[in-house]
């Protein structure tokens, strides 16, 4: 069957990517990886997955293009406005009590979620005492996140979401429109550290007060999800908060006991216990 040849070649390609480039997709949810690789095959003009394999081993410049297929997520600013409203109304009051704050946006992709949080913290008067850590495994996505430029036609949706999140300002205060693009304010980035970090292979970050990692874990299988949740557990300060995607949960995790549901409906958890 053609399918099983593909499956075998995909397994070999993922092994190669790990052995040669240290990108580990081996425990990603396979159906989605397969769809993305088959799209990559067509759009990059290869006849088979095996051809991608030999090309990427010969030519490292193919790697970033392949990574875009394997990792890049198109998101929205303030996607799921009720999540941001819950952060604003229920989590922010706790965060106000700290003299300084650390926020980690894990798997930040092109930065939509990151800037949503940066704007929210600005509106709530916490921006100056907050350091944001934005991480992703894809260097191209990190660059895009750093640039903070989005197509203007997406901004209408961003604006609507922002308003529904309980906005205290207008989104247009934070960007200038320029040739069909919205260029977000440089000052938003002044307290953001961008870095290459893998939830699969890298270690914990220290003493975070809030970790937001939404719609990243659904791309992992259960074992890998658990590894990432373990990293979050280690990285959170006592009583720190973890925000997940609306269809993600800690229910099946070996680390479930280390967290309490803080706003259950919005998948906002709080680190408890040891």
């Amino acid at each position, binding site marked *: *069957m053609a399918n099983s040849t593909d499956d075998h070649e995909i397994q070999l390609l993922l092994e190669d990517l790990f052995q040669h480039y240290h990108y580990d997709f081996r425990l990603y949810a396979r159906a989605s990886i*397969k*769809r*993305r690789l088959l799209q990559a095959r067509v759009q990059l003009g290869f006849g088979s997955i095996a051809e991608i394999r030999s090309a990427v081993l010969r030519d490292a410049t193919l790697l970033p293009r392949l990574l875009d297929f394997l990792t890049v997520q198109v998101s929205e600013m303030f996607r799921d406005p009720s999540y941001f409203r819950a952060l604003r109304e229920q989590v922010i009051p706790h965060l106000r009590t700290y003299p300084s704050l650390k926020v980690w946006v894990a798997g930040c992709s092109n930065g939509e979620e990151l800037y949503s949080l940066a704007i929210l913290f600005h509106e709530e008067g916490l921006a100056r005492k907050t350091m944001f850590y934005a991480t992703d495994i894809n260097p191209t996505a990190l660059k895009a996140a750093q640039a903070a430029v989005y197509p203007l036609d997406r901004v209408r949706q961003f604006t609507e979401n922002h308003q529904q999140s309980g906005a205290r300002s207008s989104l247009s205060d934070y960007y200038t429109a320029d040739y069909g693009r919205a260029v977000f304010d440089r000052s938003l980035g002044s307290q953001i550290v961008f870095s290459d970090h893998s939830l699969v292979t890298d270690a914990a970050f220290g003493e975070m007060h809030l970790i937001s990692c939404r719609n990243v874990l*659904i791309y992992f299988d259960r074992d890998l999800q658990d590894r990432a949740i373990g990293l979050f557990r280690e990285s959170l300060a006592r009583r720190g908060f973890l925000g997940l995607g*609306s*269809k993600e*949960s800690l229910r099946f995790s070996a680390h479930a006991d280390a967290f309490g549901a803080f706003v259950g409906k919005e998948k906002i958890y709080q680190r408890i216990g040891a």
Partner: protein
Amino acid sequence: MTDPTGDRTPLERAVVIGASAGGVQALSSILAALPAHYPHPILIVLHVPQRSDSLLVELMRPKCGMIVKEAEDKEMLRQGTVYFAPPGYHLLMEQTMTVALSTDEPVNFSRPAIDVLFETAADALGPDVTGVILTGANHDGAQGLCAIGAAGGTAIVQDPSEAEMPTMPRAALEACPSARSLRIDAIVQALLREAA
């Protein structure tokens, strides 16, 4: 082959259904006619506005003998259970008889997209999947049904003359000429025969 835990027989087949405009009515008629102990899991993508909370499960549950739920990421499929794709997420079937969700870009302007479910189901189960395309006003599902047909699975399309919106069934029949065009009551009979 038996399940090592011994408490249930391993799944061998699944049914996937795609519906769009007019789909609630058509789906209700089908699901209401299937018994509680229907032996295959049924996975459904029904196009709904992306921002709506899913009321589908609440709507369908009282009409069905089978267990009706929203599909949860990485959950193991079970017999006698109907799984709906959550609004805003693609629903994918894994080769391990589990499901996965994704926020990949919309396909055919839809998320969830019928094509994504059907193509991954064809990939996971080959001939052991039945795909059903119901009423709708777009072309989603045509490629997916085609993949199911090509993998040796059973392809069924609601008779366009009966469908509230014939566009989607017509597109599916065009893409997958081997598909059978059946009225709702005949679709129910076909699904019941697979349970025998």
